[in-house]
């Protein structure tokens, strides 16, 4: 479509003469800079931060960006990243779940006790652990919706209770080793996407992006709405293809793309789809934006809270299972310590607002990559855990400040 065609009959969403038309490359850049100034920053700070982290650590230790380290780094992301998807959900409705660490610990204990001690089938113990997540989520939502207990208190109580339950389950053993031959440990430690297939997979992902973008253009044209440039779509898909294939090639120099990381990304994409393309996702954002507005629009607010708490606990349980598989053990220290902090920090660092109604499933991925990069870089520098905690804490504070400042900026520019 040429620009002359467009100006002859403007699409119905561009007929207001006050609309500032974004013509050409310069126009688009101007629109972008106006949005950034207005606080619509999206994933920009975290991407910039990630580049900065990569540059710094690479300069300090050239092993950092090697294929082997990146493969480990991405595999390391899967367990806590999965938990972080659930955190994104509760943050979107402006609530919090502080018990995700304990929940993941309970799940790993269920796996250890059920699978190793009682010789139950693996699928059954994993299902039991997920059911435990559902039950905990239901209890939280009853306490929150029915008795109006603030979510941070409910889940703080849950943190203690679940920790107790985890200790009780593990009993005198304290620690249960999960055999390497079990499916989950193998999956977490030794399963990689076969090399030839990995290239096909990336090509398929790019093709999917291309076709869904083109389908959107077709739908918009059918409804007489303005359409983005088709050349731009092909260009972006091409860039995506090149970037993905290059990354795959680089990772394939070592062991390749790990299966847990693929699972994690699939979960992120699925959650992103649910959040952006379904009525349920819309209601999650609406509740985060204005509870009263959502209620008066006829949304069953209690049901939204319930779904979010249940999903969050389920993701925490799944994350616990993955982490037990990664470490090949379920112990009293599973899920204790930095699991909570890392999962919540990842969601916030990735750009999901603590104030509700703003964020994306992708922030779980971006945030956890930042956190694991810092952890990996500091480990390579032989720095102790103490320094790692302090630096992660600093980055979290920075992310919250960015969130706060961009919120004020949005309010000042009328985009709150």
């Amino acid at each position: 479509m040429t620009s002359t065609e467009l100006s002859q009959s403007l699409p119905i969403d561009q007929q207001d003469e006050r609309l500032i038309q974004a013509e050409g490359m310069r126009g688009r850049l101007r629109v972008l800079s106006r949005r950034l100034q207005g606080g619509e920053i999206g994933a920009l700070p975290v991407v910039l931060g990630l580049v900065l982290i990569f540059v710094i650590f690479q300069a300090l230790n050239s092993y950092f960006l090697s294929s082997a380290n990146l493969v480990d780094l991405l595999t390391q992301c899967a367990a806590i990243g999965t938990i972080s998807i659930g955190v994104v959900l509760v943050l979107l409705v402006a609530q919090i779940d502080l018990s995700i660490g304990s929940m993941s610990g309970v799940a790993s204990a269920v796996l250890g006790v059920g699978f190793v001690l009682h010789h139950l089938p693996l699928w059954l113990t994993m299902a039991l652990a997920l059911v435990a997540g559902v039950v905990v989520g239901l209890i939280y939502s009853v306490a929150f919706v029915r008795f109006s207990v603030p979510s941070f208190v409910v889940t703080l109580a849950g943190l203690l209770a679940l920790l107790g339950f985890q200790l009780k389950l593990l009993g005198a053993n304290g620690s249960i080793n999960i055999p390497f031959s079990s499916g989950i440990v193998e999956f977490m430690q030794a399963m990689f996407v076969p090399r030839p297939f990995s290239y096909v997979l990336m090509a398929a992902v790019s093709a999917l992006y291309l076709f869904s973008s083109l389908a959107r253009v077709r739908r918009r044209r059918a409804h007489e709405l303005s359409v983005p440039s088709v050349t731009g779509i092909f260009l972006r898909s091409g860039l995506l293809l090149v970037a993905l294939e290059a990354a795959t090639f680089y990772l394939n120099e070592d062991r390749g793309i790990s299966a847990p990381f693929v699972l994690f990304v699939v979960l992120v994409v699925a959650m992103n789809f649910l959040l952006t393309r379904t009525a349920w996702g819309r209601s999650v954002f609406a509740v985060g934006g204005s509870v009263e507005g959502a209620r008066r629009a006829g949304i069953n607010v209690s049901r939204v809270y319930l779904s979010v708490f249940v999903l969050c606990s389920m993701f925490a349980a799944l994350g616990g299972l993955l982490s037990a598989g990664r470490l090949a053990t379920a112990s009293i220290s599973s899920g204790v310590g930095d699991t909570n902090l890392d999962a919540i920090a990842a969601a916030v660092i990735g750009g999901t607002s603590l104030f509700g109604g703003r964020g994306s499933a992708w922030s779980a991925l971006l945030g956890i990559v930042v956190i694991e990069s810092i952890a990996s870089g500091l480990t390579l520098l032989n720095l102790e855990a103490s320094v790692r905690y302090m630096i992660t804490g600093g980055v979290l504070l920075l992310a919250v400040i960015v969130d706060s400042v961009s919120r004020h900026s949005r309010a000042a520019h009328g985009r709150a």
Partner: protein
Amino acid sequence: MASPSSAAKRDGAARPDPLLSLRGISKSFGAVQALADIDLDVSAGEVVALLGDNGAGKSTLVKILSGVHQPDSGTITFHGREAKISSPTESRALGIATVYQDLALCDNLDVVANLFLGREEKRFTLSEEAMERHAWSLLRQLSAKIPSVRIPVASLSGGQRQTVAIARSLVGAPSIVILDEPTAALGVAQTAEVLNLIERLRERDHGILLITHNMADVKEVADRAVVLRLGRNNGDYDVRATSQQDIVAAITGATDSAVTRRATAVAGKRDAEEASR
């Protein structure tokens, strides 16, 4: 301007059967009798202003109609059939749309998302394009001036937000639209815009219940004015045949009130000035 049907009504022709009619509605909160034996009718293509001082029971009546409160006694007849409105969803399903004073929009969502919130058009996934197009056609019907429907409503002006809230009430094709103080927070131009919107709703044969404190708005757009005082009916006036003073008197409860005394005093002073000239 006005459609033939509403013009006929104003000429005093017999009113058709009302769309909505309340009979003997009472509601008390503990020891407080908020509403006692209220009657109210709203017909299609008619703007009824609901007036009353603070605490007169206007908000309680609106909440009963929108399903937030249930009346203790009395009947609600809607489209000739007795209706029970036990939740906001039921009220909306019946065909009563309420535009609240605080608008109840979600600031973080864009105009399209707000318009269709709670009843999104979907075919497995959300039909964003269909909704966007529908949004434009709704806004065009109201001659609304919204530059883009893909911006968060937080970035709109007060009048534009009010427009979005009113347009949203029309999504389910309601027969009655209740507007709670739609001009209270608006400037002069924006008030005029909203009054135009109300006239357009009337032309499209919606019944409109307009809750307001602003007598100028009543004079501008309302066909009838129903006055509540201390939870009781205190008059039902044809706006064009009644002086503003009489309506104010009904609102304040007496022909002799602070408002009328002031009016008389001012008028007296003016007469005296003219006489002295």
